[in-house]
């Protein structure tokens, strides 16, 4: 997680144009000489349709300085569960492992696994793409995105409480060992080791999320009431995780639309207006032509 690149996240209500905005930004940055990776984190991927190229877990070069990949959530869930299963087989007795097999079939459908798979993918992408200047994440709609950003904080809350209890248990065990065996050293608690590892992992992610030099949140919205309300909800929810969108992009803005309301509500953020295109923004050439019509673009 020590890479020097910048992560740009595009989030917002379903259907507002997060994928299009992230694709436009990716092309714009690639054109300005930045080595860019565009990653689709949405399980319902759109980038393949936008670029008219079949993408997968392996990044595909679409033009100079621009690579695109789509995260396969099921791949990450299965890989994670098979890692856990392997560790269990190493430490558990045969019978208990056998009993656990039944649980693993349903664990992959447990609430929370999807956002954890996204987090694993995010960490892997950051670790493997230290050569990139910018990584752009096209996020899923609001619910899953908020869970993704909230995961480090929520996990740390649980882990701190579990750590407190574990330390009390270890303290008590030390007293018993001292009475029974004198000064004999006891082995370091394996559960405590795991808790420490997890705390370090989540604290690192949380630090990167909260660092505005490394993580830039772009809120995409449309000039309509539903999208406006949900954008406000996203901002207030992110506040709970100490995260604040830096840029607001108003997409599909119709001609002569009065954006003063939006400007007033989001006045402390950079505002980018993207007017509604007369033709569908599909294909690299169409996207490049659309970018040429814009007078300015947010500086990253």
């Amino acid at each position, binding site marked *: 997680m020590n890479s020097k690149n910048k992560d740009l996240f595009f989030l917002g209500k379903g259907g507002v144009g997060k994928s299009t905005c992230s694709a436009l930004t990716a092309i714009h940055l690639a054109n300005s000489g930045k080595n860019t990776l565009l990653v689709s984190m949405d399980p319902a991927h759109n980038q393949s349709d936008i670029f008219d190229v079949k993408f997968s877990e392996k990044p595909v070069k679409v033009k100079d300085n621009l690579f695109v990949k789509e995260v396969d959530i099921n791949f990450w869930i299965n890989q*994670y*569960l098979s890692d*856990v299963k392997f*560790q*269990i087989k*190493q*430490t*558990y*007795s045969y019978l*208990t492992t056998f*009993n*656990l097999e039944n*649980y693993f079939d349903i*664990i992959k459908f*447990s*609430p*929370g*696994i999807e956002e*954890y798979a996204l987090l694993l993918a995010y960490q892997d992408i950051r670790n493997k793409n230290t050569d990139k200047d910018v990584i752009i994440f096209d996020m899923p709609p609001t619910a899953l995105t908020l869970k993704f950003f909230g*995961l480090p904080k*929520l*996990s740390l809350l*649980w*882990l701190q*409480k*579990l750590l407190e*209890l*574990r330390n*009390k*248990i270890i303290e*008590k*065990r030390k*007293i*018993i060992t001292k*009475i*029974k065996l004198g000064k004999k050293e006891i082995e370091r608690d*394996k*559960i405590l080791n*795991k*808790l420490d*590892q*997890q705390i370090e992992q989540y604290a690192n992610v949380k630090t990167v999320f909260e660092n505005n030099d490394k993580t830039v949140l772009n809120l995409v919205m449309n000039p309509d009431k539903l999208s406006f309300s949900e954008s406000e909800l996203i901002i207030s929810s992110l506040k709970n995780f100490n995260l604040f969108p830096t840029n607001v992009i108003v997409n599909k803005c119709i001609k002569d639309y009065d954006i003063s309301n939006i400007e007033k509500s989001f006045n402390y953020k950079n505002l980018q207006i993207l007017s509604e295109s007369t033709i569908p923004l599909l294909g690299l050439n169409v996207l490049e032509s659309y970018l040429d019509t814009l007078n300015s673009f947010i500086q990253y």
Partner: protein
Amino acid sequence: MNKNNLLNKLKRKLVFGWKAFNSAAQDKAVDTLEYELGEMENVFGLLVLGAFVGFPSPPMQITLDLLPEMEKHFTLMLNKVDTAESPLSDLLSAFDVI
């Protein structure tokens, strides 16, 4: 001479008695601590593995990451669920009645 012998004998008996008393007190204290430790381990197991027995639980990945080191807790949890249907027999076995 006899008086000294008697005193030494008495001293030895007193030391022996004190050691026996001390050891019994220590055992009793350790028993209590061990019982308390066992209960704390149960609470820890229930907190981490609650999802397996229908309790509110931490995010699933915390449970799964700790699971490989918690076989003892996991087995105990499942045994507790098995005996949950017959609390009376569980109570009697706890007091070693049957």
